[in-house]
């Protein structure tokens, strides 16, 4: 099986020298590949990759995010999506084309403080992200607890093809709605929520360790057995 070299790097470190394909958070200088973030670098014949361990959420179109309504104007809701920009959910997306501020009351649908599972519909360098709730399962979050993690840890929480998040869900009897922006809604039985929240925090703290999957498995598996 092919070999990967994994390295712990910080900004300014040379990850590798040579001729490779390379991804985000890396800068090529001559034949050196420089890390731009703190993270885990991987060098393989596929190229040089850096998995950051810290950093902000940058919205991308089609991202599923958990947002909080923080304000509303006549024409839409302002949503805190944990990025450097607020998201904007136009009233017409929710009420339909016949929407008019004179006849439709925004607070009848969503109020300040409501949590929404939503999608980034549009976003580019010239304007704030536009949010939509068109899609299966999107809309106001009716119940559950929020767990906040660094957005850089979300891929680890989801796991390859959803393996990790599905395992947590199965072992705790809880539903997990994961936002790419680092907000996770956990709903289900109280003991399940506690276990799931602990598993999520474990993943956040130890995302850089290789045997994380086993650790989480043991934590959840062992707890489930103990409860019987």
């Amino acid at each position, binding site marked *: 099986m092919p070999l990967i070299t*994994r390295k712990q790097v910080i900004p300014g470190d040379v990850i590798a020298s040579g001729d490779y394909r390379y991804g985000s958070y890396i800068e090529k200088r001559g034949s050196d590949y420089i890390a731009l973030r703190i993270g885990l670098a991987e060098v393989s014949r596929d190229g040089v990759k850096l998995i950051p361990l810290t950093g*902000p959420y940058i919205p991308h179109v089609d991202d599923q995010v958990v947002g909080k309504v923080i304000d509303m104007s006549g024409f839409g809701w302002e949503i805190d999506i944990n990025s450097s920009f607020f998201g904007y959910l136009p009233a017409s997306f929710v009420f339909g084309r016949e929407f008019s501020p004179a006849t439709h009351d925004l607070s009848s649908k969503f109020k300040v403080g409501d949590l929404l599972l939503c999608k980034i519909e549009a976003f580019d360098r*010239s304007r704030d992200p536009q949010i939509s709730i068109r899609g299966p399962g999107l809309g106001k979050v009716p119940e559950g607890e929020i767990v906040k993690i660094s957005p850089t840890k979300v891929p680890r929480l989801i796991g390859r093809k959803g393996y990790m998040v599905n395992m947590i869900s199965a072992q705790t009897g809880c539903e997990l709605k994961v936002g790419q922006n680092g907000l996770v809604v956990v709903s289900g039985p109280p003991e399940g929520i506690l276990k799931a929240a602990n598993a999520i925090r474990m993943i956040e703290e130890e995302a850089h360790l290789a045997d994380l999957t086993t650790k989480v498995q043991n934590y959840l598996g062992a707890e489930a057995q103990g409860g019987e």
Partner: protein
Amino acid sequence: MENKKKLISDDGVRTDGRRWNELRPIRMEVGQLKNADGSAYIEFGKNKIVAAVYGPKEVHPKHMVLPDRALIRCRYHMAPFSVDERKNPAPSRREIEISKVIREALEPALIAEDYPRAAIQIFVEVLQSDGGSRVAGITASSLALSDAGINMRDRVVGCSSGIVDGQVVLDLNDTEDKEGSGDMPVAFMPNLNQVTLLQVDGIYTPENFRKAFELAMTGGRMVYEMQRKALLEKYFGASPSETAMEEEE
């Protein structure tokens, strides 16, 4: 004729017991403030400085937004109890100038184009000051920026040198800064070999200037290694490791 106190003894010992090319004791800690996106604490001799970063975040006031890059802001501030005579908390002209030079020392390292229309705010709060607080602040700010996950080409590190009793020395303390005949704070990005801050105060022969400048860079490289250890310890709990492993399924 005034009998001027010697700042270096005849056998080369300075007021705090160091030799000409020794740094003061340095301690670094990363990520101790919960609200800030990134933070660091540094002790450089008696300097005790907190650096914090918020960003990328919204720009206020809105008219200052830059369409293609982040707006970088920096505030250097000294606590009233940080110096011998209590200092008024309102920003002084000195603090405003230092805020600017620190910002300009850090900006070249930040990839501001990755954060258009946003702001990155850097805070340097001096809890105790003892000469060289701006370079210590820059060093701590680099740690805080790394902690916040802002894309950086390299870390910036700062160190000062100067002239005391006619000799070029490394890392001036407060007494040497006040009573010596030259002070030169320098900040640079070691991997890129680019100088981002240089201030010269005092009279230097061309030879002394070259010596002092190179000495500050040498000191800076030692501090750069300490930054590395501090970040690795915070994030990985140990010294750098490299592992070869089988590819995962």
